[in-house]
Structure formats: C-alpha cells, structure tokens
C-alpha cells in the first residue's frame, strides 16, 4: 500500500468512526426514543469546542491570534470525556425546557431554532470560541509523547477512534437491547400507552436525550482533535439532516443499520465527490451534493421508509403476557376477556 493510499484510508476510517458515533447518538434519540432532535449538530459542536479549548493552552499563545475561553492544556483523554459531559449537561438544560411541557411538533421546531441560534451566538460572541474564524491549531492527543511518524500517528488515531466507538457501542447496545430499550420504543410508538403502563416517559426521554448528546459531544471531540480546527461553518443545522438521512437510509432504530448508513451517506458522499473533476462554477459540486442528499432522504422515505436494514420486529413469548394464568385463547374477543385473567395480549403483542 503506497504512502498516500495509507494516509487516505486512515483518514476515511477516522471519519467513519466519527460518523458511526454520530449516527448512534442521533438514532438513540430519534430512532429508538422518538425525540425530534434537530439541534443534534449543536451538541456535537459543543463537544468539539469543549475538547478544543481544554486541549489548547491559554489564548495568549501563538501570538494571541485567536481568542477563546479557558485554554487549560489538559492532557488526553480528559478533554474528550469532558466534551461528553458538557454536551450532556447542556442537553439536560435544553431537555428540561423542551421535553417536559411542549407538544412534539413544538419540540421539533424549538430544536431547529436552538441549532440556528447557537450558531449565531458562537459566531457573534468572539471571545467564546474565536467567532466566525473558529478555533484552530488544536494539538493532537499524545502526539508529542508517542513520537510517531505522521502516518504512524494517523493509524494510531484510527485505533483510538475504534476504541472509543467500541466503548460507546457497549453502552448503546446495553440500552437498545434492555428493558430500558423496550420502554423507550414504547414511548416512541405510543407515549400514552407507555405512560398508562407506569413508565415515566419524560424521564426516559430526558435520559436518552442527555446520553445521546453526550455521545454527540464525544464524536465532536474526536473529530476536532483529528482535524485540529472547528468553526461555525462546520455545524450549520443542515448537518443534522445528513446524519438523519444516514439513519433513514441505514434503518431507523437499528444499531447495525445506522452503522451501514454512516458508511453510505456521509462518508461515501464526501469521498465520491472528491474524485470528480471540478466542473461548472465553484460551489456547484457542493450544491449538487446537497441536492443528492436531499433526494436520497426523500427517496428512502418514499420507497423504503424502514431503511436498508429495518428495525427488528420484536415478538415476545406469550408467557410474558400471562405469567401465571392459563394459556390465553387469542381467538376470544378482547371485550369478553375475564377481568384479571391476564394482562390481555394487546399490550405485549407488537402492533402490526
């Protein structure tokens, strides 16, 4: 493998890891719990900025050409973990305002507005994260201690990203395959029914919102420490739509499906257009790329709304429905069932 190919491949693999984390993060919220988080990219951005300013030294460094807060020069892995914590904490604040009392359609709109407003605030409060120019020259983790060749460091970062991805997957899998995951899906499909079964749906949603956005923060941190710079241009609200499209293409609600989506949508699109010859006026290819992403989302919602790898339809053995009583005769109309005979099947039966 030539040097250039190896460099290129390792870069793609890092992006892929970040995109997979992104898809899991948003899929937990949208795919599993049904939270309309159109502000997703803002949480990724907050993670990126947090990791950036915690890794960078005081802002007077490098001739003071950029201004930002904190500048703590903390060692790896503190900034990445702190990024997750800060994104999660902010998600808690946003979630407490939006997820408790607002109607779901209002939630979707408020999230969209939050995303745009966050960009405006960061762009205009220069002292926060260096305004429109963004922060740059962020040191890469362990670069000086490892003393690797640039290519060697690339592959080290691939391993680092893979380790974080595997670490996060353990938690994501624990959530989606547990009773908690079932409660979340119930909240998504029938919030009233879940409440009637005694589930505190607001608390469930808040939990997933905080946890999912903490992952978003970690994904942002990994990305920013790889590319070394972050500015408002990298987190316009439409970036959330790219991740959403990846989830819809891959299979909403399915951990492996959205992983596939991460490979197909953000990675494949960025890479495929890289090899196109520059045609037309500058920016034309970007515009066409966005058009294709938009059409891809529309096409999948039209033809394959469940995605390439649909969410597994879960069936539960009937003993869950009737733990102690005699077998339930399912042909009997529901209305005539003896009261208390069983937790009459419709609750456990997946809706067709």
């Amino acid at each position: 493998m030539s040097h250039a190919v190896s460099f290129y491949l390792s870069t793609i693999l890092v992006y892929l890891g970040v995109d997979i984390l992104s898809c899991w993060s948003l899929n937990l919220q949208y795919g599993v719990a049904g939270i309309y988080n159109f502000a997703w990219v803002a949480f990724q951005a907050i993670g990126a900025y947090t990791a950036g300013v915690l890794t960078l030294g005081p802002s007077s460094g490098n001739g003071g050409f950029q201004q930002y807060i904190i500048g703590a020069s903390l060692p790896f892995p503190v900034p990445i973990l702190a990024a997750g914590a800060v994104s999660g904490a902010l998600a808690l604040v946003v979630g407490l305002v939006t997820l408790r009392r607002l109607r779901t359609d209002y939630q979707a709109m408020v999230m969209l507005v939050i995303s745009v407003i966050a960009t405006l605030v960061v762009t205009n409060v220069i002292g926060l994260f260096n305004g429109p120019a963004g922060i740059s020259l962020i040191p890469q983790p362990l670069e000086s201690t490892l003393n690797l060749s640039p290519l060697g460091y690339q592959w080290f970062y691939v391993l680092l990203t893979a380790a974080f991805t595997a670490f996060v997957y353990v938690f994501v899998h624990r959530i989606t395959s547990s009773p908690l995951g079932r409660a979340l899906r119930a909240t998504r499909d029938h919030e009233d029914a879940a409440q009637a079964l005694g589930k505190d749906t607001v608390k469930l949603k808040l939990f997933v919102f905080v946890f999912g956005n903490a992952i978003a923060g970690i994904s942002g941190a990994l990305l920013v420490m790889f590319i070394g710079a972050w500015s408002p241009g990298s987190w316009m609200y439409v970036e959330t739509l790219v991740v959403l499209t990846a989830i819809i293409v891959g299979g909403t609600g399915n951990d492996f499906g959205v992983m596939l989506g991460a490979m197909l949508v953000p990675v494949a699109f960025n890479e495929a257009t890289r090899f196109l010859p520059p045609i037309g006026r500058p920016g034309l290819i970007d515009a066409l790329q966005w058009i294709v992403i938009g059409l891809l989302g529309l096409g999948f919602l039209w033809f394959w709304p469940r995605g390439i790898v649909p969410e597994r339809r879960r069936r539960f053995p009937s003993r869950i429905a009737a733990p102690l009583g005699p077998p339930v005769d399912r042909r009997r109309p529901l209305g005539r069932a003896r009261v208390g005979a069983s937790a009459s099947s419709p609750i456990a039966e997946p809706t067709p």
Partner: protein
Amino acid sequence: MLNASVLVPSIGFGLVTASILALASVGFTLQFGVTNILNLAFGDIMTASAFVGYAVNRAGGDIAESMLAGAAFGAVFSMVLNRYVYMRFIHRGTNLFGMVVVALSLGIVIQNLLLAIYGATFFTYNFSAGGQEHFLGMIFDTSQLVIIAIAVGSMAAVGLILTRTRLGKAMRATAADPSLARASGIATDRVIDVAWLMSGALCGLAGIVLVLNTSAFQSTTGNDFLVVIVAAAMLGGVGSPVGAMLASIVIGVVTEVSAGFISPSFKEVIAFGVLVVVLLVRPQGIFGHASAVKEVAV
C-alpha cells in the same frame, strides 16, 4: 440607556420587519393550521419567488409586476408541492416527524438548485427605494411604507376571508376536524388546495418584500429568515393566524429595538429569548391550543 432618538426610529424599522414577518408567518401558520404540515421549505420557496420576481424585474417589469409574479409563483408552487409531494407522503403513511424531514430535505433541494443555477453571488432588484418620509419621529423609505401597506392589506384580506366567507369557514372547519368537515359536505381537498394557494401567495410576496428591504439577496436569504418565521409562528401559537400577526409585531419591534441598543448581530437571539420565556409560561404559544398533536389531514 433608553434614548428616544434611537428608540423611536428603531420602532419604525421594527414595524417594517414586523410587516415582512407577518406576511411570512401567517402563511406558514396557515399551512400548519389547515394541513398540520410544518413546511420548513417555506424560506426556500420565499427565495425561489424572489428569484422569479428578479427575472421579471430584469426583463423590464416594474416592482408591482415582480410582486405579482412572485406571489403567483409562490402560490402555485406551494399548492403543487402540497398536493403532489406532502399529501402523497402522508397517504403513504409518513408520520409527523417524517414529514418534517421531508420538508427539510425539500428545502435543501430547492436552495441548492437555486445555488447551482444562480451561483453564490448577491443579486439586487433594479428599483428606487423612493424618498424618505418622516412620521412621528420614525423615518421610512417610500418602499418601506409600501411594504407596510401591503402587509396591512394582506392581513386584512386574510382575516376577512377566514372569518367572513364560506371559504374561510370551510377552511376553519377543515383545520378543526377534517373528517367531520368532509362528512358535512365540505370538499376538503379543494379547501386545502385553496389554503395552500393563499399561504403560498403570502410566501411569495414575503420573499419579494424581504429582498426589497434588504436590497441584496442570494440563494440562502429566505432560509436565513426561516428561524424568525418559525419563532413568530410558535410565539403566536402554531396554526393561529391572529397569533402569528401579533407575534410578528412583538418580534419585529423587539428585534429592531434591541438591534438599536445592543447589536444587530443578536437580533435573532433576542427573538429566541422572547420565544423561550413565553413558551416556559405558555407552552402552546399565545393563541395556541394545549391539545396534543392532531392527526394529519388526509
């Protein structure tokens, strides 16, 4: 500190912004009220209409002709979009969240089509803003007075149609309960088409007055305005035209006054602050209903 020489003119600017905002947010909220669709492609349709008006303007048409062309384009485009895209998706069983993604994707497609066609440059209508008029300490260009007049006229027309005509009654009935409306003999499909024609005309008109007031525009101009439109619609209570009108005045005046005293860069942030405070007290907006989300009208 509060200084009348800054305050009074900025209220004037606020009234102009409020007029543009009212046209847009009433259109947006009507679409949601009648069909339960959050048309987040609204801003991009405004831009597309502005480009149609621009073509007429460059071909030698005057501003009135540009406005007519823009409004007509917005009306027909929105109606077609609703009938052949949104409604088709709903018939296939796309849920409310899916519809939001559909609308956002469509917006991205429209915006980038405009970018691909026209490029990332700024465009300006060929027109004169007219002389300055002083009114109670506020300063307006003649064109700004025209914008206010258009907004007041359109709002009055929308109000009269909704409250005084059989068509308006049918629209309100369709909004309240589509199946009951259909059972009562209302041709809900046609009522929905007319509602989207009306709101689309407002959208096109808003697009043109927006770019007349900011003078230079590009493929993202309408979409940049979308957040304020959504904020105004939510503040008023989504689905309530009267609420959207009042909220537009509040947001328009508050943003421009804050721009005069703090910084123009924080206009939208202030608008959002107002929205959050109101939603904390009244989660459904000023005139909204507290009820759960309705089923989408089919």
